């Protein structure tokens, strides 16, 4: 990850505390700034994006560079929370694409976004099972079958919070084997057959290829994740930032992201 925590002389600790205290406060007037509509898209545009966007955004980055030969895109893919903390602590980013409205709000509340963020894709949960679904899991309730080892994401990470919402909506009380720290490790447990199933995002199932199989379930509609994107107030390269956001939100952008498993907003 190239430049997530540069210019950190404002003390990371302070930022971390500020994150907690200020996010609880009422949202102040968000940065209303010039969206300079210049045409010269060149130089480097730095995009901070949720880790789940890696596949689609990498593809879009290449397309962007083909469209604008003078421009280069560098990505910092990581958890949305740490990206938000980085931006709030002065990391020099142009664009922020978060995996939840909550994490985007951490940045808008600080006044670091230019204009209001917009949702560009959505994500839904799926049940990831071993290939061929040997335990015949068709619903959330099937996960409670005795002897079945299920892993969820921890509630502190988005996929865990979403799974909780879905399980509550389904009225299913599930005790998992583990609350994993992120989607990746939840999927790993299924891929290694240590767990029989995991509740993760459909994009994650798609990214895992044929090592797991995805099972849709209706309650996932209750826990749809919006992915907001925004230009940043202190963007070193505002015109390129604008152009990149436009590409992401275009029909072409949605198509690319759709192939990665994302749903249209």
């Amino acid at each position, binding site marked *: 990850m190239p430049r997530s925590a540069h210019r950190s002389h404002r003390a990371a600790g302070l930022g971390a505390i500020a994150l907690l205290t200020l996010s609880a406060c009422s949202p102040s007037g968000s940065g209303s700034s010039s969206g300079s509509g210049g045409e010269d898209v060149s130089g480097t545009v730095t995009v901070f994006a949720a880790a789940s966007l890696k596949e689609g955004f990498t593809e879009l980055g290449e397309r962007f560079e083909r469209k604008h030969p003078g421009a280069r895109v560098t990505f910092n893919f990581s958890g949305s929370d740490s990206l938000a903390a980085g931006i709030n602590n002065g990391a020099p980013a142009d664009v922020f694409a978060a995996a939840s409205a909550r994490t985007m709000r951490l940045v808008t509340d600080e006044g670091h976004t230019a204009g209001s963020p917009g949702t560009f894709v959505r994500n839904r949960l799926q049940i990831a099972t071993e290939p061929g679904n040997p335990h015949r899991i068709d619903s959330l309730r099937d996960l409670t079958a005795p002897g079945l080892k299920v892993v969820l994401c*921890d509630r*502190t990470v988005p996929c865990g919070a979403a799974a909780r919402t879905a399980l509550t909506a389904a009225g299913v009380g599930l005790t998992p084997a*583990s*609350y994993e720290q992120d989607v990746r490790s939840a999927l790993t447990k299924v891929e*290694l057959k*240590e767990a029989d199933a995991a509740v993760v995002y459909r994009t994650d199932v798609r990214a895992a290829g044929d090592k797991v199989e995805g099972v849709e379930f209706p309650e996932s509609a209750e826990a749809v994740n919006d992915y907001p994107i925004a230009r940043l107030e202190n963007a070193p390269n505002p015109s390129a930032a604008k152009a990149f956001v436009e590409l992401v939100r275009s029909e072409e952008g949605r198509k690319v992201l759709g192939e990665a498993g994302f749903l249209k907003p």
Partner: protein
Amino acid sequence: MTTGREAPPKARPRSPGRGVPLALLVPALVGLAFLLVPLLALLLRAPWRSLPEQLASPEVWQALRLSLFCATAATALSLVVGVPLAWLLARTDFPGRGLVRALVTLPLVLPPVVGGVALLLALGRNGVVGQWLDAWFGVTLPFTTAGVVLAETFVAMPFLVISVEGTLRAADPRFEEAAATLGASRFTAFRRVTLPLIAPGIAAGAVLAWARALGEFGATITFAGNFPGRTQTMPLAVYLALQNDPAAAIALSLVLLAVSIAVLAGLRDHWMRTV
């Protein structure tokens, strides 16, 4: 902590007596500051006002209890197999010993998460060894407290082995010879002579291993997962709290720090002092 005699720097550029050379003192103080300032920052930025509320959560104490138990169990396990391993490396000569010694230290350089994956591949339900444990004994280790202990042992034992092996190499092997001439088998000599002689080294190694096990995160969460009360140790709780509640993470870190400092200081006073 420091020498206590750095007060007037200009008065002792190179005093002939017991002065500490600046060339040593300055880097020493820089090193000390480098270690202490982050801890100090943690203290300064700690959410002292909300701390009581944070600590009132039973999950904190559950995680702390589990951490202490697992780190202690991992240390015990490391002692049981690590001390004999250190003896083997220090006192016997077998082909490939150099390679074995290098392999023992491998977990030190391996990223702990990779270690956790390796443990899954070896001891997991579907692992190279684990599938037989499951088939023959019905034992599965991932997602269990035993799994936490194993993961911690995996990363902590090298510290013990290296420390004990170093002490063994420094210890005079002729004491074992003297024991042999008195009729002691190699095992008796080890148990009654070598072990007491290297006790300080073992203690130091055990403390290192315990501290490493207590702070273990990557291998534990990868191999044993994260379930409160069963496999969620303090470092896991801290990491997950950090995702959306940094203040809670700092509070938990402080608890872990305070407890480990108390235990280590207590140990030093009670039995590191002997010999």
